[in-house]
């Protein structure tokens, strides 16, 4: 259990962090970034697993199961789509392929 004010601090710092990261981003990356952040909230999978792990009645278990299914879809789908989008950026610089140092 997390203390209310501690949570408030975490909320605030995390929100500031997200805001700062996006603040100076070229338009060309908006779509991949939206897709990337879509992947990151796939962490909901962990929460759904915990919810299903603590579910007791069959009804709760059913909802928890659906939650894990959806969460897993969010995480896996988000990753694949983002990766495919970003893959295209490799060809943009001729000759930079060798080092591949991102």
């Amino acid at each position, binding site marked *: 259990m997390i203390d209310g004010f501690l949570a408030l601090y975490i909320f605030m710092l995390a929100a500031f962090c997200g805001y700062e990261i996006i603040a100076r981003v070229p338009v060309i990356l908006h779509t991949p970034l939206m897709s990337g952040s879509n992947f990151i909230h796939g962490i909901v999978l962990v929460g759904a697993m915990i919810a299903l792990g603590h579910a007791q009645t069959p009804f*709760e278990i059913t909802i928890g199961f659906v939650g894990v299914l959806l969460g897993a879809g969010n995480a896996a789908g988000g990753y694949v789509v983002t990766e495919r989008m970003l893959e295209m950026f490799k060809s943009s610089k001729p000759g930079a392929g060798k080092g591949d140092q991102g």
Partner: protein
Amino acid sequence: MSLLPTLIKACYFLAALLFILGLKRMSSPRTARGGIVWAGVGMLLAVLATFFLPDMHNRSLIVAAVLIGVSAAWWTGRRVAMTAMPQMVALYNGMGGGAAAAIGAVELIGYARALGLLHVVPNTSPLQPESWAINGLPPMLSPVELSLGVLGALIGTVSFSGSLVAFAKLQGWMDKRFVFPGQRVVNMLLLAAAVVVGVVLASGHVSGPLIALFFVLALLFGLLMTLPIGGADMPVVISLYNAFTGLAVSFEGFVLGNEAMIIAGMVVGAAGTLLTQLMAKAMNRSIGNVLFGSFGAAGGEAQAIEGAQKPVEASDAAVMMAYAERVVIVPGYGLAVAQAQHKVWEFAQLLIKRGVKVKFAIHPVAGRMPGHMNVLLAEAGVPYDLIADMDEINPEFPATDVALVIGANDVVNPLAKTDPASPIYGMPILDVSAAKHVIVIKRGKGTGFAGIENALFYADNTRMLYGDGQAAAGQLVNELKSLDD
């Protein structure tokens, strides 16, 4: 703290760190590809650690659900065409919102079940969780946890049904905008009702029927709120729901006491909100206007457009561009639909070989997501330095011989500058009509997604090349090649 819980906590910490660093890397073109891998490692760590949490039941069910969900999404994500990426983002985002809502539902149902047990034991109150342990009852949610759980469930559910509608619209299953009189009032009443039921739930009066009513109201609100939105507004809405899901995940993370969820969700919530603002700003509109405004519904008093659309043959169009000095290509959603990016780039390369200076001009909201066109052109192999954004290219149009518009409509409509009655008045546009000649590749004579007439198509210096984007670009390529023979 014993070793295992410490290790699990450490994994969650590392995951949160990797998410933030990964997102940071994704915000620069040079490091973007590494960024998603970093975030992916974080996700893997967090999921693996969760399997080892103590007191977890239904482990085999968890494994089954994870495997099914991952393989289904992996398979569809790999198979789908690049042009369908926007709706896939909407779909996966909706799934995340649904998962957050499911967490909230399980917590609420569990709470209601525990309330049932509570009546057996005297002198306990749902609002005093301390008294529960004394009476040997399972630990309950504190009032703050209950409120945030309800709020997260509300936001997650709206994001779920809203994103699915957005997906269906972009997929072409739901082409029409759905509008009825008094829609805004109905939507507001639905939201108000959902909030009222939510407040009742959060005050500790949790029961089965009330939970069901709550979710039905939230689902309906998400559905009805998204139905009337269309056209150029779709990207803004998807981005907004992305931020919604992030917030929902963060709140449900608080209920579950999971720091990785709180941090990752809130980072996405803030980043997504800012991204949504940037996108709305690019269209010169506020987010409220996008959600509740009546885009494309003004009609009536708009200026009548004089003249007629003048068609042109592919051979003439090819000659015009072959002997031009500067050509600017303006892609829009039609390019994505027709999958014409490869053909267009082939055509551009032929022009460049002939010594024509070719540039691609991209409007901030061209396509159905910001940067949608950049992604497609990158897929075809168009190098960065040939792609210009709006502020960069607009001063260059008067010196441009031919502007080739492919599947773009609202973002090049001069009415946005001249006609205050037009629903898109005030939206910054690409100044295509300033070019000496304009060639528009378009499927037919109809209006665009937003249903607005485009004065550009009737301008004296505009010629229409009717046809599917890919087929028309193919014709242009053939005509150019035959010029060289």
